[in-house]
């Protein structure tokens, strides 16, 4: 049937740019147009990033009703409107913008990471996860059967598999006990519905599969294929039957919220009821990704470059949060993690912290800093977003857009911080996405104020060191050591200690130590 709204994919480029038009004109273009002819059903050699965008637009336009365009890009000035007594701003972006609820899961699919859907019941979290499973080539029935539904009685055997009863009786050795592994373990897209209803002990088994990609029962091991994970929870804080163990939460790379349904789209909902349409069952076969295509996409995404300017912004942002001056006696231990490990009450630590401008210091807004895993996730998703947008380099805006979803429950706000006491900042207590984006914007403002793109003395020294020490003589080494010491003297002179300065000083100490060791080696020759 030529007429099938739900299976139709636009042949128009999803991200048109004037400069990428081929200069070799194809006369076959003459017959491309609004009417489908038999040629349209022939497979076309689509670039993987274009295919990913086609998948996105198919989901947004055909599968998900009422998408929210909360990942905003602008190609020029955006039209804005101030609305209501609260003076909230409605922005009409001038560039192609995206719905995080579709985009982040797709990027998770492309990078084979882990995404948590949160939101109230009946908002399409499970349906979206199923769409991702179908995108990987499984039938809806297979995806549904393989989906793990969290419940309070869920055992490790329910999750991973059972030993064969005959082997349990006859085996003389543990190695002889064969396990009937659950089929979901071999899926390329793994879905765990309501993971916060899983008992704590079973969560630990899940953690092994999620973290290390294997399952273990009675010393038998099942190696899982590389896969994307989609989990759902009604409450991201773990408010199900069981508290979600921290390590499991930490394995989740991004969190997306299912936003409210806009009743203005009720008519489309009505059509689905009347026509008995389930979009996940109608996904066009052209959009299905093979395992090899996902592998290739992963390689392409990792090859996307992060320019130095963008990387420096992330470095500066990440530097803001770990410092807790009063938590450590030695310079290296002045961190929030030191305080957390000691078990000291947070308010005691906060009360001891004085002298800094707690409103200006972004570090005062959080109770923790960023982990290496968080930073890796951020960089990978920023690359994936740039790839999705058809770019070979990450833009600052890519980083800004993925940051709130990657740090959603990773950067814990301190609600007692003076920042949140200001009336204009009150919404940030509840809207973590906006708070994190604001935090990044504030860090960028400070970065620009300090003019760090042009005057980064620490960066210059690091670059000089990165060139290598081959041929560097004793005299030069001493000069570099002196330069480091001089720079430290300048940086600490009469200044309060802020997060970025703390990390700069530690970096200088690192460089000083490397040159000191090198100097010792030179003198031993």
């Amino acid at each position, binding site marked *: 049937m030529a007429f099938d709204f739900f299976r139709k994919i636009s042949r128009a480029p999803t991200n048109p740019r004037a400069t990428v038009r081929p200069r070799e004109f194809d006369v076959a273009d*003459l017959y491309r147009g609004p009417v489908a002819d038999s040629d349209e059903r022939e497979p076309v050699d689509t670039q993987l990033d274009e295919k990913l965008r086609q998948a996105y637009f198919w989901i947004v336009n055909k599968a998900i009703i009422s998408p929210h365009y909360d990942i905003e890009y602008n190609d020029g000035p955006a039209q804005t409107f101030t609305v209501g007594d609260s003076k909230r701003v409605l922005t009409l972006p001038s560039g192609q913008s995206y719905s995080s609820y579709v985009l982040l899961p797709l990027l998770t699919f492309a990078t084979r990471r882990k995404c948590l859907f949160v939101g109230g019941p009946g908002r399409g979290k499970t349906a979206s996860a199923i769409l991702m499973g179908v995108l990987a080539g499984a039938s809806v029935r297979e995806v549904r059967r393989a989906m793990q539904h969290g419940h309070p009685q869920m055992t490790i055997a329910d999750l991973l598999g059972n030993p064969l009863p005959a082997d349990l009786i006859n085996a003389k050795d543990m190695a002889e006990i064969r396990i009937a592994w659950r089929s979901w373990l071999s899926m390329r897209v793994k879905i765990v519905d309501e993971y916060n209803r899983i008992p704590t002990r079973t969560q630990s088994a899940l953690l092994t599969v999620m973290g290390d990609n294997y399952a273990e029962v009675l010393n038998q091991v099942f190696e899982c294929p590389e896969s994307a994970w989609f989990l759902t929870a009604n409450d991201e804080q773990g408010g199900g039957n069981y508290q979600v163990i921290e390590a499991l939460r930490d394995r989740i790379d991004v969190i997306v919220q299912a936003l409210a349904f806009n009743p203005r789209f009720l008519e489309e909902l009505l059509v689905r009821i009347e026509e008995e349409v389930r979009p996940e069952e109608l996904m066009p076969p052209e959009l299905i990704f093979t395992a090899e295509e996902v592998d290739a996409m992963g390689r392409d995404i990792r090859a996307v470059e992060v320019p130095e300017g963008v990387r420096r912004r992330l470095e500066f942002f990440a530097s803001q949060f770990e410092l807790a001056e009063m938590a450590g006696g030695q310079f290296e231990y002045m961190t929030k993690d030191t305080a957390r490990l000691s078990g000291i009450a947070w308010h005691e630590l906060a009360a001891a912290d004085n002298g800094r401008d707690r409103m200006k210091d972004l570090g005062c807004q959080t109770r923790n800093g960023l982990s290496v895993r968080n930073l890796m996730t951020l960089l990978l998703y920023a690359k994936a977003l740039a790839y999705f947008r058809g770019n070979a380099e990450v833009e600052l805006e890519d980083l800004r857009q993925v940051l709130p979803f990657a740090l959603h429950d990773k950067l814990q706000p301190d609600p007692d911080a003076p920042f949140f006491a200001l009336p204009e900042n009150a919404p940030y207590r509840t809207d973590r996405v906006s708070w994190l984006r604001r935090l990044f914007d504030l860090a960028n403002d400070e970065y620009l104020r300090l003019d760090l793109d042009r005057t980064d003395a620490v960066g210059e020294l690091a670059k000089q060191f990165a060139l290598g020490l081959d041929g560097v003589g004793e005299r030069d080494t001493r000069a570099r050591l002196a330069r480091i010491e001089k720079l430290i003297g300048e940086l600490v002179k009469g200044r309060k200690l802020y997060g970025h300065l703390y990390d700069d000083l530690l970096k200088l100490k690192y460089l000083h130590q490397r040159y000191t060791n090198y100097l010792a080696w030179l003198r031993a020759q």
Partner: protein
Amino acid sequence: MISQAFADVLAAGRNGFNHRVREAQRIFPAFRAEAFLRFLEEGVDGVAVAVEQVDRSRLPATVLAAYDVALELVGRSLVGPAARSQVLAEAWRGLFPRLARLITAHPTQVLGMLSNAITHIEGIAGARISQWTEEMTALAPHLETVEQLRIAGQVLAWRSGAAHFRAGAIAAAAALPEALALRAFGAGDWSSWQAFRNDVEHDPWWGDDDLHAMRERRVGSFSGFGGQFATPPEIRAAGEVFFVKSGDRYFLLIADAYGAVLQPAGADEFEHAIVVQPRFDYSLRDGMLRVGSRRIDLDVPEPGLAVCASAATIAIASPYTHAIRLLARGER
């Protein structure tokens, strides 16, 4: 009134056809049932009658395909009272029945191809769609396969003004039987396709005795009067083509004896063109452009004229009209 045979097929599949209309109403907000019924009567019925005469057993499949294409065309306002032009509707009445043999064999493909081609050519500024449909109608009895139809359509599209299809059309025509290829090019007097191709391939301004081939073309004009250029165009030659800048927009300009076409281009391409632009010596005096011994009358004032040339074409842009005049560099 529609023909009995067409009415019978519609009646036999009434529920299915009605369901398709409901689906189209949902997909296309602009879909109008009255316009659709009228198009079935005035456009599709003629095709059905012609197909019935070729092979009655293929009528239901053809009607089904034509019905779906018609839904799409009405839904997108490409035919009917809201359509920008009636060329496509007229082609369904005049041209399509002439191709009944091919439509009977491959209804979805041929109806889709032809509808798309007409829509495509209509969208090319300066292209002569009426020439394309007339020449295709004349060629229709000689077309025996869908592939021949496809290639002939491409050749005719070029000769109707789609200058960017020139190279592709000449290359594709090699697959046609010699007599059909020459006929598609309007070169029925020639006895050898190869000899004809050698001539036409090397000169964009080749035209022989073809009435549609000119030694001069014009493109653009002030956007305030419906043209493409908001500010006086800057032109740069690059190989056989030109890059044009007007305001913050960039274009690729391709011109030959049959037409001149503007395509979107990038700023980088325009900037790069300065590097490869060939040297062109000329002077402007007494209302004339002088290139070597050649004198070209100017129809616009000299001040502000921008002139450059590719190997085969001279381009003259005026700040008064924002139009670009393109002339064959060689004299016939």
